[in-house]
């Protein structure tokens, strides 16, 4: 099993590589040649529009669908998590639609360490857009966890089941605080 961090040609993925290497063998990949047991990581620096444009290209989309539909495991971080939803206020292009809900614009940038309803302590957020509790349609068999922005908006900070882990916060910065969550998912 290898953790494969998808590089779309831009963005800060070195930190992710350093972080995920502590859990298992980790590679940065530019295309989706995935084994059944591989875990795909979609990194978190990026604009929804840009991500949608790249990931919804026919060949890439087909590989993503195949991985998800055959029970392959998937970790989405920040905008790499937001793109899993159906749509976003940030873009006219659709998301991947694996999760039901819409990403909306927060009153202002949500940056800093915040508590979540999950078991671990504070985790680090850096996002202007998020899925709020009101914009979410829950799916059975998924666990949902929340966090509040300083303005009091309740956002979905984490969603998971056996195959998918989506995090609005940044695990590569939160590090030890959420290591158990990542280790449990990977193992």
């Amino acid at each position: 099993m290898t953790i494969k961090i998808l590089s779309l040609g831009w963005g800060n993925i070195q930190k992710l590589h350093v972080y995920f290497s502590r859990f298992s063998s980790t590679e940065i990949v530019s295309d989706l040649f995935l084994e059944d047991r591989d875990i795909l990581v979609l990194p978190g620096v990026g604009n929804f529009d840009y991500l949608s444009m790249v990931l919804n290209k026919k060949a890439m989309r087909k590989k993503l669908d195949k991985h998800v539909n055959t029970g392959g495991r998937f970790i989405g971080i920040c905008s790499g998590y937001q793109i899993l939803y159906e749509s976003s206020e940030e873009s006219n292009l659709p998301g991947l639609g694996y999760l039901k809900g819409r990403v909306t614009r927060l009153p202002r940038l949500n940056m800093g360490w915040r508590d979540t309803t999950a078991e671990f302590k504070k985790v680090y957020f850096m996002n202007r857009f998020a899925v709020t509790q009101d914009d979410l349609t829950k799916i059975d068999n998924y666990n949902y966890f929340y966090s509040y922005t300083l303005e009091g908006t309740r956002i979905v900070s984490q969603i998971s089941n056996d195959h998918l882990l989506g995090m609005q916060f940044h695990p590569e910065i939160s590090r030890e605080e959420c290591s158990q969550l990542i280790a449990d998912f990977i193992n």
Partner: protein
Amino acid sequence: MRLIGELILSCELDAIKTTSFNDPVYCGDCLNISKIWSDSGISELLFSITKYHRKNNSYKKIGNVTGNPEINEYFSDYISNLRVPASICIYPEIEDCHRLFECGFDRVGFCYEKGKETEIEYAVDVLRSQYGSQATFLVYEVCKIGKYVDELSEFINIAEKWGVGELIFKDIAAENKCADTEFCKKLAELARDSEILIGYSGGLQYEKEKLGKLKFFSSLSLGGDITFIGSNNVLPGF
């Protein structure tokens, strides 16, 4: 609370400290200092590059610095191992910005400068559409630009229009002058209605006067989170 450590760097990327923004003195290797700060529990590191060059063990201020081409090589493999997010304030050269993101920086920002608006707006637009607005910030150096209360709301509107994630007002109490109460008051008013996160350093006197419990902090992020932006001059040990 957000505690931002600001490391002021010379063009050769040495950490320097100044007295009232003059007479810079070498105070250590910036990577070592940032490692110490990063491990000591601060929330974020902000690297600011100044226009100072080292020459014969002294520093000479020069103008028109367009960024250090070796910057990426210097930071690569290092920033990725820091325990905290790292931001850097540079000149709006798009290629430099891309490389800095690639070598692990989380945010790239620009100092606002009159006459450079088009350049900065273009850089923010390109970076925002690729990395997201949270990856950009704009710095307003009050000591350099001036405490123009009348122009504040116009400036904040411009920053919102450009789509920056955060606007940082720095050096309000520069040159040992007291914080400008009118300026801070107006800034606090505008920040409440602003869409972007606003932080400022300085304003200690104003905060002491109005918010006694914050007297130890010289900065307040007006987005609601207390932010302390401490430079090499004021963070413990330096």
